[in-house]
């Protein structure tokens, strides 16, 4: 018995020691902690693959232009002003000048030569740049200004409105650090624009490729040093990535401070937590300061949780992510617009929003976000959920109901109205919406087969035009509304971006005119008409625009909450006094 007592005592002491360890670990002051859902894997500004990585790289490197999240507009970042655009017949010139003060981590200035180097790295063969290479394919050449080392002109093929952003949308790399042996100096950007096969055995290029493709370039703090206000301090795979503010950064010493070029918190650390439940507990534990992408139901719970609202502020900015349904107009059964309209009337959008988004979404008439007031067509109303109307439309489209479903005979071919609905597996919002649609359609006599499949298989089926109907998300923005690739019939071939096969002669004309339209009134008129046609044709059925759901520690101010990702500008955060 005495022996047993001893054991119990021992156990007691052990548990005491355990508990003393288990007090919450102390926090570094002035450190902002952000949850990441997955390891960024690769922080190289040319070969990164994940959106999580982009958010981090944005704090280390800078592009020519940036989006000011405070008012969702494009502003010059490394450049000192927006580009001067000069349109010629087949090419367009974009002339930039870099900020006078902009400098690299070693104090040397950022020059036009660095921009040229960046383009070479992005376009050269043999390098690990395949992810981003297609994005700069339209930039043919760079012309450096002979007199001004900071001035240069980008020569681009053709013209589209979004080129303005795309010419300034890639991170500028430090040539002194990335190419100390000046291996790429002897090439020009045009060398990498034409046929690349002759360069594949080029020894100099091969040497550079071995150096640049090494894993160090994806994660080494010594190499990943850019012109922005932070540098990589520590990265422990799948646990955390911490960034430290540079001690004497040029952006903080500007004579005229720029509100969107900032580096306020001394340390930013990204905590990697894959599981949502765990992330929420970490939030309640106050182990993280920022949590985004909160599941809708949980967000409502957080709102009602006093302990949370005392320390966290909750935001729901209007995002630019459109959830839409696509119908394959090439399928004979969906060939006429009445049938498609009938299906649109079976989509219970209000229930989708209520159930899968807990009302954190706004219904929309078309692909223009309701928050963009100038272009949104207020004259239209979103398609209503009306099964009776759907039945009526189907009947007038020639369908007849039988106990087995809807049938019609077109050109001697008997058609049966069935729908195979595909969407990306793992997306609960799609899944719930699909099941709601399935039930509504079943009541109307249309059998719907709901198929959750792997993301890449969805894109394959959509591009091969073998689908009936799909749910997808469209990422938008508030600056450019060039819908030509999405809706013009010239993009509707196999693998083209017009997957639904939508298009009338009028819509094609509208889309062509929009690109060259100059005045805002004209653009608005064109877009509003396009929205009306899209709704009428019901091939691309816009469902709703999502709202993002974010929680941020309320001790911070100057957050710049926005619907554009990453939804807040952490480099601007200040602690409230």
């Amino acid at each position: 018995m005495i022996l047993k007592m001893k054991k119990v005592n021992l156990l007691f002491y052990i548990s005491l020691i355990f508990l003393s360890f288990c007090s919450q670990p102390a926090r570094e002051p002035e450190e902002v902690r952000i949850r990441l859902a997955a390891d960024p894997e690769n922080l190289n500004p040319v070969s990164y693959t994940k959106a999580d990585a982009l958010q981090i790289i944005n704090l280390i490197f800078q592009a020519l232009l940036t989006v000011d999240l405070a008012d969702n507009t494009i502003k010059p970042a490394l450049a000192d002003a927006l580009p001067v655009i000069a349109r010629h017949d087949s090419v367009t010139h974009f002339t930039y000048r870099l900020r006078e003060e902009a400098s690299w981590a070693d104090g040397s200035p950022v020059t036009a030569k660095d921009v040229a180097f960046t383009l070479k790295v992005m376009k050269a063969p043999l390098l690990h740049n395949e992810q981003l290479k297609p994005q700069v394919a339209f930039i043919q050449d760079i012309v450096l200004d002979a007199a001004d080392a900071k001035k240069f002109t980008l020569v681009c093929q053709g013209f589209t409105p979004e080129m303005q952003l795309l010419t300034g949308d890639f991170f500028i790399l430090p040539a002194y650090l990335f190419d100390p042996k000046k291996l790429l100096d002897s090439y020009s950007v045009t060398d990498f624009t034409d046929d690349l096969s002759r360069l594949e055995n080029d020894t100099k290029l091969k040497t550079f490729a071995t150096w640049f493709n090494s894993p160090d370039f994806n994660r080494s703090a010594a190499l990943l040093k850019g012109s922005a206000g932070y540098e990589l301090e520590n990265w422990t795979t799948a646990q955390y990535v911490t960034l430290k503010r540079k001690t004497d950064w040029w952006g903080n010493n500007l004579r005229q401070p720029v509100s969107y070029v900032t580096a306020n918190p001394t340390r930013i650390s990204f905590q990697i937590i894959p599981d949502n439940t765990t992330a929420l507990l970490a939030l309640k534990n106050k182990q993280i300061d920022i949590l985004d992408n909160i599941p809708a139901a949980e967000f409502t719970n957080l709102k009602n949780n006093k302990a949370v609202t005392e320390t966290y502020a909750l935001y729901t900015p209007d995002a630019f992510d459109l959830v839409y349904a696509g119908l394959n107009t090439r399928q004979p059964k969906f060939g006429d617009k009445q049938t498609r309209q009938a299906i649109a009337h079976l989509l219970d959008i209000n229930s989708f929003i209520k159930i899968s988004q807990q009302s954190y979404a706004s219904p929309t008439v078309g692909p223009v976000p309701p928050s963009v007031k100038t272009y949104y067509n207020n004259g239209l109303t979103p398609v209503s959920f009306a099964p009776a109307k759907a039945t009526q439309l189907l009947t007038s489209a020639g369908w007849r109901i039988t106990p087995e479903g809807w049938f019609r005979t077109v050109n001697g071919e008997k058609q049966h109205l069935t729908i195979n609905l595909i969407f990306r597996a793992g997306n609960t919002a799609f899944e719930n919406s699909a099941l709601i649609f399935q039930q509504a359609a079943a009541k109307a006599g249309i059998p719907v087969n709901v198929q959750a499949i792997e993301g890449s298989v969805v894109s394959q089926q959509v591009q091969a035009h073998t689908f009936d109907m799909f749910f997808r998300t469209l990422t938008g923005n508030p600056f450019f509304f060039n819908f030509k690739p999405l809706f013009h019939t010239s993009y509707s071939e196999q693998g083209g971006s017009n997957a639904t096969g939508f298009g009338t002669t009028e819509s094609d004309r509208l889309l062509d005119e929009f690109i060259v339209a100059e005045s805002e009134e004209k653009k608005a008129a064109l877009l509003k008409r396009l929205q009306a046609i899209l709704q009428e044709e019901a091939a691309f059925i816009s469902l709703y625009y999502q709202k993002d759901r974010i929680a941020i520690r309320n001790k911070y101010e100057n957050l710049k909450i926005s619907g554009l990702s990453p939804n807040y500008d952490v480099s601007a955060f200040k602690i409230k006094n």
Partner: protein
Amino acid sequence: MLGFFIKRLLYALPSLWLIVTLIFILSRLLPGSFASENILHSQSESYYSKSDKSAKQQAYQNYLLRTGQHLPLFYFSVTANPEPDTLYKVYPESERLHLQKLAWQYGNWPLVTAYYKNLQRINPTSETKPALEMLRKAVDGKAILSALADLKKAAPYSSTVQELEKSADNLIRNGTGYTYLLPKLHWHGTQNQYHTWLAGLFTGDAGNSFRDSRPVQDIILEALLNTWIIVLISLLLSCLLAMELAILFLQRPFIKLKQLIMPVLFLLDSVPLFVLCLLLLVFFANPDFLQLFPAYGMGFFQTGNLSWTEQFINRLPFLILPILSLTLAYLPYITNQFYRAMLDADTSDYVRTARAKGLSHKKVIRLHIFRNAWLPMITVISDFIPALVAGAVITETIFAVPGMGSLLVASVQARDYPIIVAIVFVVALVRFVSHLLADAAYMLADPRIRLQR
């Protein structure tokens, strides 16, 4: 002794090779790859396209070439007779599929390519476009002819169209169906992915991860360390506990205790591990209930240098929940097995003799039963290793521990094949080594076994 080990090694190698080869080939046969996911289908759809299709296609092919993934998979492949072995080089995939369909339908590859080349030569204009679109999908003779008729209406005097018509006619007339029922063997030689990988493996290079292009062995080692800490500690804990429990159960006075604990263990065994983890998380890392432990991870970044003991102490609170959940999950099975092994030993002759000698019950258990039961126990543990890893997958995902389990889930989702194959290899290897150790222990303990082998 050495001879025995070598013999065992030779015995186990075939299974090891078999499993790794199977996983290697299987993983690459499945649809979707890291490259196509990230380059071809990379951006989610957007208002304007950031890059056009052909540029992406070009980049994709460059990537495959650079990483050696353009090579055939294995030394040989068997396909239907009409397919050429160069078919995999055709891009984009939709075109490849169409070519394959034509090959199956008409069974004559030269005729198919002749037709296809003529088809590609035709300039798409706004008039010919619909007919061309049809032709790119048409497979059977009727469909091709009707689309051709449309095309001729759209471009009546074009010589390329006439050539196309000729080759189509030739194809339809001279093609033979059903030749796909005959198999054809293609020999690829050593220029294949499997050979490259296997050769690398022998020189200690397991390839690079697709995701961050780091060497596979570095990544695995990093993850293995984290997993090992958790798995080993929880295995040790559950073995110790199981042993104590089993010894308790064997003693008469504690029969009531046994009747109490056994059902609890059974119940514990019936709760799925992920439910157990969620329960622990919600109960012990939740400010709404009891906030004893941090919810996730393996510690935060600390500035300054720490000794390893300090590091360990910093980590400890993060480790407790994962360890606890795994210990609870392993405990019922191990206790049961240990108890049974000891029960067997308990009824054996020498224990009876020992009792007859007048040794006390406790001493009998500690000295004799245990000495004879620990061998079966080792087997139990080494048999248990795959289950340990399976458990780690779940625990690590929920508690955000960067170990083998979460690495595996992430690699599977990203189709990072080199990592997947390496993980399977490591797990199989560990199991094999532990079996070997168990055998060695048997031999040392009981020389009779040596004679039997």
